[in-house]
């Protein structure tokens, strides 16, 4: 094999390495990647980063200010706020990643069908997308959780339910464009079934913007979960969700400002990180499209 086209050292292909390098060279992308990486490290290594467990109660040390022992102070039960916030990253990701994935997959399939089949199926699906988008998502979530009771699963389910239309619309628009390409006509002429044309020929070429939309949605879902937990309708206690920590901070706001300050800090770093990361990805993607167009 010619050395110039062999993959660079390690198993990482050259193009992927370049994409990451380019993402890191853009200031927005770099900050985003850094923050996202930090969040992932916190989530994975939570037990190694703090000597306490998130549910450890120390009643003698309630609502303590930050100190060498408790970096971000303690809450109304004497639990270490830093520990709870670090473990909170796990909850944020445990909600955001499955919700975005489920929303993206459902939206993708429906969008594909809408764009490919057309006719009344398309009209009906677009109507469905518009109807779901016309729900104020938070109020809708509140109504459902009021009946079922709060749980991690419900938060994920509702988020997936309210996010799928944006993916559906995106993939439909892509499909409409790709449907007219010659290779699609060719695969049809060769006798490929409709599902095969959609999944093997259209989808791989339509899916790129979906990743950017998904990255953009992660902070939306994280914020949403925090909002629900703040209302006491998210992940039930004593699980340390950022929203429930903010709620406790709000309840004891006159006694200590630290919970609100540090809780907001974690939440904002996560949303800022994922937003910058997504914007970096989008810029990268746009450049690639321009590059391809000029060839």
């Amino acid at each position, binding site marked *: 094999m010619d050395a110039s086209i062999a993959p660079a050292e390690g198993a990482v292909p050259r193009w992927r390495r370049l994409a990451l390098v380019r993402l890191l060279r853009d200031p927005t992308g770099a900050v985003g990647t850094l923050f996202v990486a930090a969040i992932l490290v916190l989530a994975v290594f939570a037990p190694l980063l703090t000597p306490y467990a998130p549910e450890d109660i120390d009643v003698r040390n309630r609502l303590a200010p930050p100190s060498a022992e408790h970096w971000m102070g303690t809450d109304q039960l004497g639990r270490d706020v830093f520990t709870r916030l670090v473990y909170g990253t796990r909850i944020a990701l445990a909600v955001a990643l499955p919700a975005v994935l489920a929303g993206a997959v459902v939206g993708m399939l429906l969008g594909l069908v809408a764009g490919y089949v057309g006719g009344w199926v398309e009209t009906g699906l677009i*109507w*469905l997308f518009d*109807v779901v988008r016309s*729900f104020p998502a938070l109020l809708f979530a509140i*109504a459902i959780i*009021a009946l079922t009771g709060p749980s991690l699963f419900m938060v994920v389910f509702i988020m997936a339910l309210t996010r799928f239309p944006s993916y559906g619309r995106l993939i439909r628009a892509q499909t409409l464009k790709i449907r007219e390409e010659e290779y699609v006509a060719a695969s049809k002429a060769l006798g490929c079934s409709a599902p095969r044309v959609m999944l093997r020929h259209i989808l791989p070429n339509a899916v790129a913007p979906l990743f950017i939309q998904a990255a953009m949605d992660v902070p939306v879902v994280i914020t949403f979960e925090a909002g629900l937990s*703040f209302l006491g309708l998210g992940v039930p206690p004593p699980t340390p969700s950022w929203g429930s920590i903010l709620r406790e901070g709000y309840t004891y*706001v006159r006694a200590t*400002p630290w919970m*609100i300050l540090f809780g907001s800090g974690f939440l904002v770093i996560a949303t800022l990180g994922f937003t910058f990361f997504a914007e970096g990805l989008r810029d990268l993607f746009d450049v690639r499209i321009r590059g391809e167009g000029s060839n």
Partner: protein
Amino acid sequence: MIVYTVRRLMTAALTVIGAVTLLFVIIRLIPGDPAVVMLGPRASDSMIASMRARMMLDEPVLVQLGAFLGNVLRGDLGRDVLNELPVLTLVLDVLPFTIVLAFGSILLAVLIGVPLGALAAAYRNSWWDRATAFVSVAFITVPPFVAGLLLLLVFAVELRWLPVSGGGTRGDVLNQLRHLILPVSALALTWVGYIARLIRSSVLEEITKDHVRTARSKGLAPGRVLFKHVLRGALIPTIAVLGVGFGNLLGGAVLIEIIFNRPGLGFLILNAIESRNYPVVQGGLVVAVFLYTLANVIADLSYGFVDPRIREA
């Protein structure tokens, strides 16, 4: 324009009916008996049975849906379980607070965001442009309820410049305005960011157009060209985004109303959940969906009004 308006109103009506249907079906499909939820765990079987009968829960779902839609169309959103007052009255009682909050936020966001974005575009790549870009992103990524908590902490609890909670004394406008400052600012922040970014990019696009070059070549002052000729075109995408944004604003308003203990639609619905007052929850949501769709229609129509190409399409 009339045809366009009628067509848009009809799609909106269909969307509302669809949304209300979907809401109803989902609520009926998910596990959990509304009668049990309302009466609490200690309710006797006969109490549950009579509540189920009153709420028509034993009828087929389609019959329930038909009755519910019929009632909604007549403006009957059911009655409060506790005091038997019509839900519509309860909602209309608090709705002005939410509407003032939402419109106040949009107004503030436009007043700050439009000049910010326009100046950023006019002085492209200057320090002002970069500062605006940074501030916009910061504002967009801070969730409104977090902004609300921080504003409450700083200006109400620590500095004590502004009231901590409530909607203000009825009839005392000045007092009510003081109570509005923090909630409106918290809700507006995100939109200042969005609008500034949007206006910047649409101004940059608009600036290259022929009619702007003509205005410049007539010798008009740069400020006049920017604010009269460029901004008019640049505002169109902003109007559309504001329509969509209104719905998100309603969602954000729930949390803001809770944080500042302000009467409003969100506060009403959440309290109704705590007291298991399901008709109020359901009715409040129907009004929220209606408002959201209405905002979108108004945005679309004003879009058509500003840009004749759209209504003739």
